[in-house]
């Protein structure tokens, strides 16, 4: 019953140390890339949905104090975070009535938070691109190495029959398969997350001005 399972394990155990090392690296790549995919799916998804909800609330309510109070509920939303940074700066300046200086400082605080938010969202995402680009080549390296050894053994057995050639090549091709299995989800996830991060960054650029305007109106 378990003959085929044993065959699969046997095939893996029959690979050389280099191919085995390549396989271990690829499995590690796959584990990390999937961990990042899960992490970012949660982070970016929440950032997007909470930002949308926060924006709806922001345009519905006139008082920025109320908006600030409500923003506590959108702790993962990027737009809410930027608003909070601007509001804190605005509060610190509310005693001073020097408009020009206040505008500059609030704008700087908003920009800084927007940058931090952009960095937070895109952290680890570049690793997905790295896996997507390198994993197939690493797998290919393992395959080439395995096939080299396979041909060597053909030379030793002095027989080029399919029975001699096929097992070695099958073992070697496992590395390419593993490389592709690691790379494909990484590339798909990288493209998806990149687009979503772009959307959030555009929103941050667009609404930073709106926030600044609302704070300045309150100051005057």
């Amino acid at each position, binding site marked *: *019953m*378990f*003959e*085929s*399972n044993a*065959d*699969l394990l046997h095939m893996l155990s029959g690979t050389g140390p280099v191919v085995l090392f390549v396989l271990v690296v690829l*499995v590690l790549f*796959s*584990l*990390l890339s*999937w*961990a*990042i*995919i*899960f*992490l970012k799916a*949660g*982070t970016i998804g929440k950032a997007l949905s909470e930002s949308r909800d926060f924006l709806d609330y922001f345009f519905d309510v006139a008082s920025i104090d109320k908006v600030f109070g409500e923003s506590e509920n959108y702790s993962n939303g990027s737009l809410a975070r930027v608003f909070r940074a601007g509001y804190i700066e605005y509060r610190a300046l509310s005693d001073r009535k020097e408009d020009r200086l206040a505008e500059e400082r609030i704008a700087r605080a908003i920009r800084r938070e927007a940058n931090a938010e952009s960095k937070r969202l895109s952290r*680890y995402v570049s690793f997905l691109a790295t896996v997507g680009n390198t994993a197939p080549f690493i797998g290919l390296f393992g395959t080439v190495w395995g096939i080299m050894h396979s041909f060597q053994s053909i030379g030793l*057995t*002095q*027989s080029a*029959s399919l*029975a*001699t050639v096929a*097992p070695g090549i099958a073992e070697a091709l496992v590395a390419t398969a593993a490389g592709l299995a690691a790379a494909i989800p990484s590339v798909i996830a990288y493209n998806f997350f990149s687009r979503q991060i772009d959307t959030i960054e555009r929103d941050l650029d667009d609404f930073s001005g709106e926030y600044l305007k609302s704070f300045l109106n309150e100051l005057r």
Partner: protein
Amino acid sequence: MNGRHAGNREGGRFAVAFLVSVVLHLALVALAFLGQHLSGAAPPDPRIIDVSLVTLPGPGSPEPEEPAGPEAPVIEPEPVETVSPPEPVKKKPPKKVAEKPRKNVAGEKKKKEPIDNRLKELREKVGQEPRDDLRRALARLQEKVKQGPPSDLYKRTGPGAGTYGAPMTPYEEYLVRIAGIIQRNWSFTPRLIRAGTVVEAYVALTIQPGGSVSNVTFDRKSVSEYFNDTVLKAIEKSSPLPPVPEEVRRREALRIGLVFTPQGIE
């Protein structure tokens, strides 16, 4: 402080995500194994057609087992041979020479109806005969397998061949010695032989008094060409063998038979 807290929180999230990833990979591997297990263990073996040199009963068969009374007319191309008038050859191009006599004979002696009847008979025979032929061929093969060694060269006497505990004759001692030498020079990987197949090669070889090997023939080849190749290479590599002892030497050269199996040389 907030930044450190946020960093810790993200580290925790990453650890959870990594754990989920590990679980997912393990589940995937388990699913792959389980899938193989549920889908009937091993994938179905591809169709393999073994071509062996078996003589089927026919015009060239050595022994027609059944008296083919009514089948005799099968050898009816006779008219083709008999009717070879040179005249049509002159009149028409040589390509049609073979066809024309048939037409002529058929046209003169037989009409369409007899031809149809004959065709029917032939079709019936074609439908029936192959089965009998195959059965006969199979039976012959089975007999061949039951027969055992193809010649007396492979019969052994002395220790390990019935007379337990008897001392080895010089001939047997020499045989064991050369089998050991060939065995040492024989390298093949049993993994390359399809599991479940019975692999056995009967090889006869002549050893000259000086020990050089000649006239290596397969009395019975194994099904694996790879196996046969390795056997031949091992014998080639072992030549020259030790000189044939004088007490063993019957005539000028010694003809012996060895049975090669994946377990070793018998």
